[in-house]
């Protein structure tokens, strides 16, 4: 076990290296609301927020509910001269389902539906015991690592902006109306943005460690506060 402020340059205990510039920092337990930035390159190192875990769990559940709506309700409707067409989110992905474009269907579905859902589930799995101050579930470490690795590939917000551009392009050609799925998707973007704002990877790694995972005897135990 490690006391706060003590470090060992030969084993690296009690030290944190900036992921962007490799500068070493002495590790310290942060109060909720404090922000740690790298001394050299100013990269955000950690920013614990009070009640963040509970909020991320709540926001993840909200995003799952919204995603169900976004997938099953009609997304957009178009009509011109008596001809009409309606599409759902699946319809959009299936646009590529002809011949050689088939793999793109899978990729698009994954990026706009699969990965956001998977990330929400992984975050709930990792944080549920931590928010209740219990031991993390088995495999919480690879679960959270996977969730972080998938972050750049989850592109729901890009898809919504893409919808806006597509609408402007067809705007002159036909009348378009939004279905409930479109609004569900817009809500999803806001929920995901809020969830990302509360997520501080370094803080979650610390919490997983403090809660009894990967005990190498190096976790810092905060002094009891008066």
């Amino acid at each position, binding site marked *: 076990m490690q006391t706060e402020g003590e470090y060992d340059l030969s084993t690296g205990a009690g030290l*944190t290296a900036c992921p962007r510039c490799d500068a070493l920092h002495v590790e310290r337990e942060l109060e909720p609301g404090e922000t740690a930035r790298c001394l050299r390159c100013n990269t955000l190192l950690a920013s614990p927020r009070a009640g963040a875990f509970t909020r991320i769990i709540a926001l993840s559940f909200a995003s799952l509910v919204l995603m169900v709506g976004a997938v099953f309700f009609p997304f*957009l409707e178009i009509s011109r001269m008596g001809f009409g067409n309606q599409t759902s989110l699946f319809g959009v992905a299936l646009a590529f389902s002809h011949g050689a474009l088939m793999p793109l269907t899978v990729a698009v579905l994954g990026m706009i539906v699969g990965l956001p859902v998977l990330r929400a589930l992984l975050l709930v799995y990792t944080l549920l015991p931590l928010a209740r101050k219990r031991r993390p579930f088995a495999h919480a470490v690879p679960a959270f690592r996977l969730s972080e690795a998938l972050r750049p590939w989850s592109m729901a917000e890009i898809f919504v902006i893409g919808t806006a551009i597509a609408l402007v*392009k067809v705007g002159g050609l036909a009348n378009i109306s939004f279905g409930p799925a479109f609004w569900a998707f817009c809500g999803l973007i806001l929920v995901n943005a809020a969830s990302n704002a509360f997520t501080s990877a370094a803080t979650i790694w610390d919490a997983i460690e403090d809660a009894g995972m990967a005990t190498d005897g190096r976790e810092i135990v905060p002094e009891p506060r008066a």
Partner: protein
Amino acid sequence: MSAPAQDAPVLTAHRAGLVGCRSCGRAWPEAETTCRRCGSALVPPDRRCLNAVWAWLAAGFIFYIPANLFPMLKTSTFGGLRGNSESTILGGVVELMHYGNYGIAAVIFAASVMVPVGKFVAIAWLALVAGRPATVRAAHKRLALYEVVEFIGRWSMIDVFVVAILSALVQLGFVASIHPGPAAVSFALSVAFTMLSAQSFDPRLIWRGLPLRSRKDHE
């Protein structure tokens, strides 16, 4: 975090004979290969990662060529009576300008031509100058450039989504219909490979070889 003195020099993990985990930040002795906290691989900040950067970048560039040569969208209006048109990325931009939609034309041109080409140039430049001695000011600029490339990379996928939405939506039988072209796939692959290239680049290389002067020297 807590500092011994405000003007003491910064020590890097590499100089201290340690290796920092890029995923969770923990520092380990140089001999370790896996972070025992988060389980990700520990990689020393050396030029080895540049091989992967160049390989992904080349793949991304190769797929960017057919993305521009083949049609992105195939449009047919009034059962082909008003003509079938196949538009490439640049062709689509020219068409939009022809109809007077200069704003949209600018957005599409920026997202599907300027951003991808800019990314190729930026990553190639970062990889070329990586590990060479730089001033602290230059290092800050390079890191900012890297962060821009990393942030903007995913947004190029917007073009693929626009094609998907248009082809799913505009299926009005005789009146008008839009189908995706083969360029959509190669554009998506190009974007994905460029993202992988940016992810393989180790930003710690930017700071290698910098003199470890005062921690305040970036101000």
